[in-house]
């Protein structure tokens, strides 16, 4: 299985240097959603890497799908991870702020 990266052309360039072939450039939101939907449907991608700020722009429904997805496992990097932060989630689920 491979790793896929979706984002603007500056974001994906570095990943190509690390040898990742499945990089998808998306400068418009529609294109971005289109690429993500394609990746969610493909069987040969294990990890999908997105930028935190791009993740925030997605619709709540798609964001939840991405957060829940195991195959591919989705990770947002750079800044906040998009949506509810891990700290908020822990506070909500466990009732105590353990992320200190």
């Amino acid at each position: 299985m491979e790793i896929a990266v979706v984002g603007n052309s500056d974001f994906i360039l570095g990943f190509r240097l690390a040898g990742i072939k499945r990089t998808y450039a998306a400068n418009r939101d529609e294109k971005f959603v289109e690429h993500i939907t394609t990746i969610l449907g493909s069987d040969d991608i294990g990890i999908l890497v997105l930028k935190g700020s791009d993740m925030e722009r997605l619709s709540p429904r798609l964001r939840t799908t991405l957060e829940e997805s195991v195959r591919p496992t989705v990770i947002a990097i750079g800044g906040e991870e998009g949506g509810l932060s891990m700290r908020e989630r822990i506070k909500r689920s466990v009732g105590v702020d353990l992320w200190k």
Partner: protein
Amino acid sequence: MALKDVKPTRSELIGLKRKIKLSERGYNILKMKRDGLILEFFKVLEEAKNSRGSLQERYNRAVEMIAIANTFEGAIGVKAAAMSVKETPEITLKQKNIMGVVVPEIESSRVRKGLRERGYGLLGTSAVIDETATAFEELVEEIIKAAEIETTMKRLLNEIEHTKRRVNALEFKVIPELTEASTFIKMRLDEMEREELFRLKKIKAKSQKAEA
């Protein structure tokens, strides 16, 4: 269940008792599941904290390096080097089950490559490109680790929330309502029995009076 909908019959009482027993059993099992999930969550919490920090650190370093590379080599130079990299990191994604929560388990092939394995010409590029490639390889290594841990955390937290909600619903809504309904039926049945006894006594007294 509103009390006015409850039929005060013995069969209803038996049915309610059965329901209460089942709800209590479900409540105990769910409570154990919630505690188990929280224990599992504590196991990954420390790892997740460390991985988020180091992921951010490596990302910042990688972004910094690519900016430097762009300045030194120009955007086209960096792109040309990036396009010539051939070896792709391979990962194996398995699924693990923690108390009914499916979480990923990721193993990867070697991400870091030697200078000669990268594919671009060594003479045509500068050391900045190599350093940038190393920074991104390190970032990818960290991403592979963090992806597994973070998804596990997110899914565990969701499941903890659901289970907690179910436990609370059973504890504070379902079981008290069923108990209330069963108490109501018991009292109503007792009342009916007393009425019946009183009626019989009245009839007996009347018939004795008529005989006399």
